[in-house]
């Protein structure tokens, strides 16, 4: 994973709350077996509306999505994160994220930062006043900057560290392989095993 520090890009005022992952990418795009190329599925239903924000000229090459509360609810599909990433997004901000979605973001190098409801509204208004304006996202100081506006976002320390270092979770875990093996040596024999196959 690429190391993330700070970056600047076009911000999108995304005035929707309760955006489930079915809306981010419908199930029909989940039939693929690849891990890239999901940009065509991103908000595919909403994008059929010519007035939809991502269809407007200033937002054609966006990097930062600022959404309403409860973003990424529902299905665990990581495709939602892949679609945002493949479309060009590097960060998503919302007052509240669904747990699985936020965890998926952290695995794919997409910054998911929590900001307050009032800061969300401030950002929306500032971006709408200058459509296509660029925001600066500074991960080390957990700050979003837009002109005079300076807004702090929350991200858990560990995810921040992993994103900043570009570290792969599996590699980190395998440093504890001896402890996993030790745990397994104590695993009770009644605990489930799928093999050998039992029953008819």
């Amino acid at each position, binding site marked *: 994973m690429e190391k993330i520090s700070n970056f600047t890009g076009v911000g999108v005022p995304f005035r929707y709350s309760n955006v489930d992952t079915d809306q981010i990418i419908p199930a029909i795009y989940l039939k693929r*077996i690849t891990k890239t190329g999901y940009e065509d599925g991103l908000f595919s239903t909403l994008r059929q509306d010519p007035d939809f924000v991502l269809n407007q000229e200033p937002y054609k090459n966006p990097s930062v999505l600022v959404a309403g509360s409860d973003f990424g609810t529902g299905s665990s599909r990581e495709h939602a994160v892949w679609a945002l990433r493949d479309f060009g997004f590097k960060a998503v901000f919302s007052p509240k994220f669904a747990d699985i979605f936020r965890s998926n973001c952290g695995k794919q190098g997409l910054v998911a930062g929590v900001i307050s409801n009032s800061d969300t509204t401030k950002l929306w208004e500032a971006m709408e006043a200058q459509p296509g304006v660029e925001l600066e996202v500074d991960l080390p100081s957990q700050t979003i900057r837009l002109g005079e506006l300076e807004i702090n976002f929350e991200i858990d320390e560990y995810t921040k560290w992993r994103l900043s270092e570009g570290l792969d979770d599996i590699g980190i875990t395998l440093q504890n392989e001896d402890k996993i093996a030790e745990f397994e040596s104590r695993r009770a024999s009644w605990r489930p095993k799928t093999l050998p196959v039992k029953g008819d």
Partner: protein
Amino acid sequence: MAEKLTLAEKLWRDHLVVKGEDGAPDLIYIDLHLIHEVTSPQAFDGLRLAGRDIRRKDLTIATEDHNTPTKDIHLPIAEPTSAKQVQALRENTEEYGVRIHSLGDKNQGIVHVVGPQLGLTMPGITVVCGDSHTSTHGAFGALAMGIGTSEVEHVLATQTLPLKPFKTMAINVEGSLRPGVSAKDIILAIIAKIGTGGGQGYVLEYRGSAIRELSMEGRMTICNMSIEAGARAGMVAPDETTFEYLKGRPHAPEGKDWDEAMEYWKTLKTDEGAEFDAEVFINADELDPFVTWGTNPGQGVSLLGEVPDPESFEDPSDRESAKQALKYMDLQPGTKMKDISVDTVFLGSCTNSRIEDLRAAAKLIKGKKLAEGLTMMVVPGSQKVRIEAELEGLDKIFKDFGAEWRFAGCSACLGMNPDQVGEFKRAASTSNRNFVGRQGKNARTHLVSPVVAAATAIRGTLSAPSDLED
């Protein structure tokens, strides 16, 4: 004196491999990993790229469910991308030596129906799957949660997951359900009460006399929809109902193992005096059948009620979502829920496709006819459920009624396969999500219980079983 712990905290303690320090997550051991065709191909590719093997093939099991047809299953899958995805799972499981139950196999079916049916899901274990409805398995007193594809790869490679401890929430459901009211109505009422984000960051523990009185099927229905309240996991402490359901299943412990397990399982309850981070109370005595009117599972109301006026919501974003929802659902505020006509009825999904669900619906429709102009599809949760239902003659009841009797799979719950609700059509669905476009483009979904689905199929309008008595 020992520390007083909730059920979820006990399971966390007993699966802790490494305690995280300096803000790092804990490393939690995974007892059972279920996989399916949609969220696994990229995880296998990741393993292959890194040259890693699966750590515990003997704790991993695969089935085909999301993207599979529910009729003509003897023919090759018609849609090329679906066929390719199912083929990828078959090739991956063969290459890595993972047990798989493919289309046509008796144990093929929705992954959350298959695990419990095989006796692999049991109290006191951790279960994960690349599917948010993995919370279903919490009904056994297991810590079970949905994960993303990167986490699927992580579990395949390490049999563990780095996780931050959850907060705990008690959902106390006291009292007794009235006739015609079921587990689905309890969970829809809970979600309407706490909202789709109310459980975010929590493990829910469903407690109280109304939960204790439920069968395992009913408890699975409730835990299944924990994610619809934003909670990654939901659970019920195991009791005699749990043990009785499990005993004798193919992979349930036997002999000395069973005795040892029982000794442990009996300790799996929240200690007297343990504190939850949050508590919610629901009175089961007062519950009516519950249905949704909007486009998220929290937008629900008593079937005796009416479509709410968006202006009645205090929160501006709730007001806006209600407005958008009513527009999509083509509903007017003040319309009585029972006056809403539907075009189709779907009985199925990991929420309500178990034998008890099919029996409850069949009992109501027996000897009756599907309302004119309606269609109905019955999709058993697994091949085994289908066979069991056929042995009981339920298939004949459904077919005589005018419903289609299908093979097992996720089907119209998410409409990945050809089973979709038509455009601008209205469905009464026993599934778990009424999201925009979920059951097909512009499809309008009302979430209902199996008996409400059955009564609705008879009358053509959203109906309670008690409406059939008039």
